[in-house]
């Protein structure tokens, strides 16, 4: 399904792997073979494809954002509208695929972790669709700042378990989901929401998200007759970024740029820029860039955006960084908040705070690309979920 296949050890260069308790090895073997079998099964791909079309709303539009372009000094900025997917973000591309896979494996209990709540909502949605039991682990801090999504998950029939240990955010929600899985592995499938975790998750989630890049490549060629000079996407775990990058990996002339969360500034230490300033290490089953102290303890991440508030990153991003195929940069909370407003005012689109990081960076640098042809930004999700939180940050009373 993709051009970058992990090495025989199922790694991306030195990154990735399966650093998990022995209890999970059997399940990961089972998942790998079920996935490999499904990936080569025409019926499976077409079932995923038609659900993403009829239920999810694909293909999503590639939209020429002229007023954003004017503001940024580049006449041809295109937004890949993943925000138009059912549930409001790209996450549904992955959860539909993995839920179908769980059914193939005969597992009807689903667990998931969530930060912003988008993956939790997308998982709860797929579970409602297929009548699967659904339990979502979410950090207590995120439960507070993403109250709307918590309620959406409950509406969809999922049980949301607030995680109070450690940093009370996505990292510890993931720990708790893995603990559940270690206990329940014989009956449960764990739908990881990003291109992180032990093999086969990073390559499987990438393959499910690669539809973003396939459509984008076709659409930009059809609209402009050429490939983009650059593709921008925000990176937390990195699933929307890998999804849109994947189809351009062999087009060496297309620059691939991932935007991490610089929080209150890299120099303050309050950020989530694993690729920019982390060091390779092991967290959540794979070897990848990681925010950690000199004793190898994982450092708490910080971002205004719950979905980027994660100290690790997908192993394929670590590999793309090290081989120089993709570049990674970071913008601050304030940059993202500004971009959140600007896109709303300029284009009538309220972006997710995660996606606002990519918009913020494009606003900064697009002018440099003005003579090189079109650029594409992955607008990974819509910002309804963030409206109340942003209003509060800006000194208003909470709205929900």
């Amino acid at each position, binding site marked *: 399904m993709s051009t970058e296949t992990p090495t025989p050890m199922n790694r991306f260069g030195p990154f990735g792997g399966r650093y*998990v308790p022995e209890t999970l090895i059997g399940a990961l073997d089972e998942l790998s073979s079920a996935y490999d079998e499904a990936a080569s099964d025409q019926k499976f791909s077409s079932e995923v494809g038609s659900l993403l079309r009829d239920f999810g709303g694909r293909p999503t539009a590639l939209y020429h954002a002229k007023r954003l372009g004017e503001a940024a000094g580049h006449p041809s900025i295109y937004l890949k509208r993943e925000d138009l997917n059912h549930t409001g973000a790209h996450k549904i591309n992955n959860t539909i695929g993995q839920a179908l896979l769980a059914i193939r494996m005969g597992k009807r209990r689903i667990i998931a972790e969530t930060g912003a709540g988008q993956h939790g909502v997308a998982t709860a949605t797929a579970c409602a669709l297929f009548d699967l039991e659904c339990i979502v682990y979410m950090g207590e801090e995120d439960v507070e700042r993403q109250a709307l999504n918590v309620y959406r998950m409950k509406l969809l029939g999922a049980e949301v378990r607030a995680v109070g240990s*450690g940093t009370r955010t996505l990292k510890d929600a993931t720990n708790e989901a893995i603990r559940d899985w*270690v206990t329940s592995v014989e009956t449960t499938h764990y739908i990881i929401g990003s291109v992180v975790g032990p093999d086969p998750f990073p390559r499987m989630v990438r393959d499910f998200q690669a539809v973003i890049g396939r459509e984008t490549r076709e659409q930009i060629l059809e609209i402009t007759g050429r490939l983009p000079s650059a593709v921008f996407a925000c990176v937390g775990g990195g699933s929307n970024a890998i999804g849109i990058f994947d189809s351009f990996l062999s087009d060496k002339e297309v620059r691939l740029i991932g935007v991490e969360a610089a929080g209150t500034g890299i120099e303050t230490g309050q950020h989530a820029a694993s690729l920019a300033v982390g060091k390779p290490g092991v967290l959540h089953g794979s070897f990848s860039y990681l925010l950690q102290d000199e*004793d190898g303890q994982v450092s708490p991440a910080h971002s205004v955006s719950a979905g980027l508030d994660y100290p690790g990153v997908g192993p394929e991003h670590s590999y793309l960084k090290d081989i120089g195929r993709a570049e990674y940069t970071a913008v601050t909370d304030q940059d993202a908040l500004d971009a959140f407003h600007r896109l709303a005012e300029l284009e009538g689109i309220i972006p997710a705070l995660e996606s606002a990081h990519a918009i913020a960076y494009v606003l900064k640098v697009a002018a440099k690309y003005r003579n090189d042809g079109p650029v594409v930004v992955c607008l990974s999700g819509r910002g309804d979920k963030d409206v109340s939180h942003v209003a509060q940050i800006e000194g208003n009373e909470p709205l929900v």
Partner: protein
Amino acid sequence: MDDDVLISKSFKLLGSEGRTALIPYVTAGYPTRDATVPLLERLKDVGADIVELGIPFSDPLADGPTIQRSSFAALENGTTVASVLDDLRTFRDGNDLPIVLFSYLNPILAYGLEAFLSDAVTAGADGILLTDLPTGADPEVEARISESPLALIRLIAPTTPSERVPKVTRGGSGFVYYISRTGVTGARVKLRESLAEELGQIRSVVSLPVAVGFGISTPEQAASVAGVADGVVIGSALIEALDKGGIDGGADFLHSIRIGMDRG
């Protein structure tokens, strides 16, 4: 390669006496930074045969609430890989109780694998158990540990596919740790009834002594496991006893387990 002599000797001696090894787990630096050395001495006095000494990690995803709590507290106390090795060195002076370091991989990688192996051996460690390094996950790291004087303790889970069991112990030595149930660490009321049968299957393909852990919390459970296993690991229940009664409480609890096992 066979410098895990203390561990092997311990099992041989116990075997000849018809006894089962009692293997307590404690988190280094818990309940306080300076508790570890006196705690190890008390555990030895009340009948521990081998101790698993936990290096705390910020993200203990294989551990239940009790060991998570002890790990976070130990980190707050300023416990580091280096301070654990210091404690071990202090304890080792005059003590021959075998010590297995119990850790997640990342703190070891951050310390530097070669430096860690050499410093751990100098400090007097006999073995190492890495919860998130299953057999085959990182052949290079595994080979370097196997080549070191430290025994590499391998784990087998109830979910380990049967054809994988003989492979799991490859490169391992000292003993094999059988996880008596799926799940994270933590005291449990019920143990698997099929334990004896499961151990029989493991023994048919694995020649190392087999210790059983995960969920053993009472002298009665310990006695029943001791009847079928070569070693009994006590972790969360011991941490809980430490919480309630300090070092004395922990030692008394382990002593009650020892008595239960030797009677059973």
